[in-house]
């Protein structure tokens, strides 16, 4: 656990992709514009729900270990987990819904159908795609990656390690998808990552704000301390009614804090335990160079 010298590392960049090779790890992000209509059509063959307004389907974050274990984050896999059952659209309604529906029923009672209901908040419990490439570490491209499960873990992320002041060797952030919920709030799935001499941390955050209704944050953290043989993943889901979070907003008329995921996240943490909290890990082999 003691601080040691950083593993050998090298930054790299190749077009829209940049990253860091550090010790036995390669960590890279790819950032491109939102999908064009041809790309959207291809995604729509996999994903049946109406796609978010801004789908960064070509963005990706990859954390790969020499042993063949990797965690990848991408938008399409995240959207595949959005609820599209017939009841899915009824879980959350916008603030104006009750009044709007009353008027609509009164004036246009014959209009009652929702075409293709889905969870329009795009809530997803996606926490990355974990896979294992077979064969020897040097086997390279011929090996197929197979999905693997992480195992429940007693050990969580080492917070002390993360708050220790350390230089950041590599930092990046990217968005996987975003939707403005037709100006009723926002649903954003984004990623941030930082690599330090002793460890790295990836934070994938799903942030949902339905104005005057609800705030929700699903966080997935992927963490590794160099020298250890496990990759740790923690998932938390928190939510609270919009009103109760708003009360702690400093100035009553300034609602801009409510659009700040970091601010909301801190509030939700203060307000109580998460709805869901999972700790998992996967062994990545202890090979040391």
């Amino acid at each position: 656990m003691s601080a040691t010298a950083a593993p050998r590392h090298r930054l790299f960049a190749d077009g829209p992709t940049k990253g860091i090779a550090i010790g036995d790890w390669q960590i890279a992000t790819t950032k491109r514009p939102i999908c064009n209509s041809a790309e959207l059509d291809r995604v729509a063959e996999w994903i049946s729900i109406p796609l978010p307004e801004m789908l960064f389907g070509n963005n990706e974050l990859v954390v790969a270990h020499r042993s063949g274990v990797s965690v990848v984050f991408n938008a399409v896999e995240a959207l595949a987990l959005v609820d599209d059952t017939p009841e899915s659209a009824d879980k959350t309604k916008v603030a104006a819904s009750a009044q709007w529906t009353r008027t609509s029923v009164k004036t246009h009672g014959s209009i009652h159908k929702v075409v293709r209901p889905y969870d329009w908040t795009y809530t997803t419990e996606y926490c990355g795609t974990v896979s294992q490439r077979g064969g020897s570490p040097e086997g390279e491209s011929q090996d197929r990656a197979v999905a693997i499960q992480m195992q429940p873990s007693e050990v969580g992320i080492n917070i002390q390690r993360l708050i220790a002041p350390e230089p950041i060797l590599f930092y990046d952030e990217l968005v996987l998808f975003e939707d403005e919920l037709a100006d009723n709030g926002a649903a954003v799935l984004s990623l941030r990552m930082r690599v330090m001499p002793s460890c790295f941390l990836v934070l994938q955050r799903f942030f949902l704000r339905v104005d005057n209704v609800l705030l929700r944050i699903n966080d997935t953290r992927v963490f590794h301390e160099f020298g250890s043989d496990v990759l740790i993943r923690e998932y938390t889901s928190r939510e609270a009614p919009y009103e109760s979070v708003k009360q702690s907003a400093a100035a009553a008329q300034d609602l801009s804090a409510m659009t700040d995921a970091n601010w909301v996240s801190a509030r939700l943490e203060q307000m109580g335990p998460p709805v869901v909290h999972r700790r998992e890990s996967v062994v990545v082999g202890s090979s040391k160079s």
Partner: protein
Amino acid sequence: MAWDLDALIEKAQRRELLPENTIRELCNKAKELLLSEDNVRHVQAPVTVVGDVHGQFYDVLEIFRIGGQCPDTNYVFLGDYVDRGYYSVETITLLLCLKVRYPDRVTLVRGNHECRAVTQVYGFYNECCEKYKGGLVWSYFTDVFDYLVLAVVISDTILCIHGGLSPSLHTLDQIRVIDRFREIPHDGPMADLVWSDPQQVDGDEISGFTLSPRGAGYIFGEDVTRHFLEINGFGHICRAHQLCMEGYQILFDDMLSTVWSAPNYCYRVGNMASLLEIGPGLERYFNVFAACPDDQRTSDPQGGEVSFKALVQELLMEEDERKSKDFQKSYDSYSQNVALDVQDTGIVTNFRTSKTLSQYFI
């Protein structure tokens, strides 16, 4: 002070803020002018139709470079002038100056963001308060919004609206009789015009209007669109309101199109934008453009400057939060970083510090 509109336009084009009194007078003149315009405004082709611009001031300047300056080109703007971008105040100021100067060559349609409730959430209210003291300027602008027209008909053939159709509106006359001089209501025909969306669905799954899964708002399909065009003797509906990667989208067998005029939306989406240029023979051409080059922008706020005092204030607030999480050490390293950035003027750049802070997420 003499009222020299051309001088004001030049200032506005340089992104200079006009004095609060001038804004008040500008808004009063605009209201007076708009009061005489019907809910449905008729204009003749050739005309250029602009979709959402959302406070992206430099892209609005680019629109005039590409589409032609006022009054050489006749413009119809389809709303959503404010919110989300950095320069909603400057954008609406420029557009109102042009409207007052060239009332017959500039038409401003109301979008769903030209609304008190929406601008309080999506940035325009805060921007007004930051750029002018107090909320007065915001109230001047939002009062004008109540006067903006709801629809435009180009050469008796093309209907332009911000959002879409309403099950309460079958004819143009029904749009004409709406009492529009008010805040956009939550429901009813006026709300539908600025909020509703078309949806293309394969097969005949969609017929008539359907409900949005969100629990408010209508979605309209191809049959509804055809019906509306037939009843009113129109050939096409042009609307804005929805982001398109290519800057425009044509739907329903060319009966309807969406025009989107905010390139690289929110400065990061990477989308294209377009102007819909309608020729003298009503031929439609989407003039597609990308975000205006960086060298034609002055620095955006994130690269801009804040007073040292304001920054210290911000950091003190950060400190409270961080203390509660035992982040004192990392805070110290940030504050050093800030101190190093202090210039003789007592000004630091916000960019470097906030970026440093955000990198230390947990």
